């Protein structure tokens, strides 16, 4: 016996909220991508807990795909950030006003 399933969900919810806060409120493109990583990790925790709750291995299989998507997202995202930094010299999303 470990803990009630609800506590695992609560932990995942708190982590997701922290990741969302980081993605929404921080004024730095790298921190925004980090926030998305935290949120994806929270989803993984919820999936693994659900796999244990319903005794089905399907949830664990989905975490594998979340890992792949996170790796893809971070590689392309960081490449775009480096590109944007070279073009504009800043990480602040507020300064990207080329179309203004």
């Amino acid at each position, binding site marked *: 016996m470990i803990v009630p399933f609800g506590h695992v969900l609560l932990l995942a919810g708190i982590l997701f909220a922290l990741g969302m806060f980081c993605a929404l409120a921080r004024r730095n493109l*790298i921190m925004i991508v980090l926030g998305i990583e935290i949120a994806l990790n929270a989803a993984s925790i919820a999936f693994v807990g659900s*796999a244990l709750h319903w005794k089905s291995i399907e949830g664990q299989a989905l975490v594998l795909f979340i890992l792949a998507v996170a790796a893809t997202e971070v590689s392309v995202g960081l490449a775009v*950030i480096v590109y944007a*930094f070279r073009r504009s010299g800043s990480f602040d999303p507020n300064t990207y006003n080329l179309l203004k």
Partner: protein
Amino acid sequence: MTLYGLLFYVIAAVIVAATGIAVTRRNLVHAVVYLIFSFLGSAMLFYLLGAPLLAVLEVIIYAGAIMVLFLFVVIMIKPESHGEMMFSLSQWAPAAVFSAVYVVVTILMVASAPGTEAPLAMLWASPREFALYVFQHHWFLIEVVSLLLLVALMGALRLGKGKGKSQVEVEL
């Protein structure tokens, strides 16, 4: 409370604390290092919840590859944080309100949903079982993921080698 329950709460507290510190750091290197702690805690949690292969993958991919990639970018272009760390409050206050509502609703939902108070049993998915399941039921998705990774590699290469007019390099 059993030993496993105690371990769960200790690991959960460490994860939440490390993540909370990470999202409020001004120095990006500190944030990334705290997040590595958080992801190592998640790996321990996966192991506790009966997913040893995923725990290993979490350490290798999340704490290893992804965070090192972040560190490389941070070190490579040394982003100095000027001015405000956060957006102005009026910009993200609506988002914070919605997030707070979401958290409250989630807590109420989890507390009232039937079955969530039942304790989880210890169960263990060996890497062999897991791999057999994935390759028997999701072999097509595995191929799609490999294609996705290939496209990401090509996209990152294309963006990284772009020789566009770069303002920063011209200034240098």
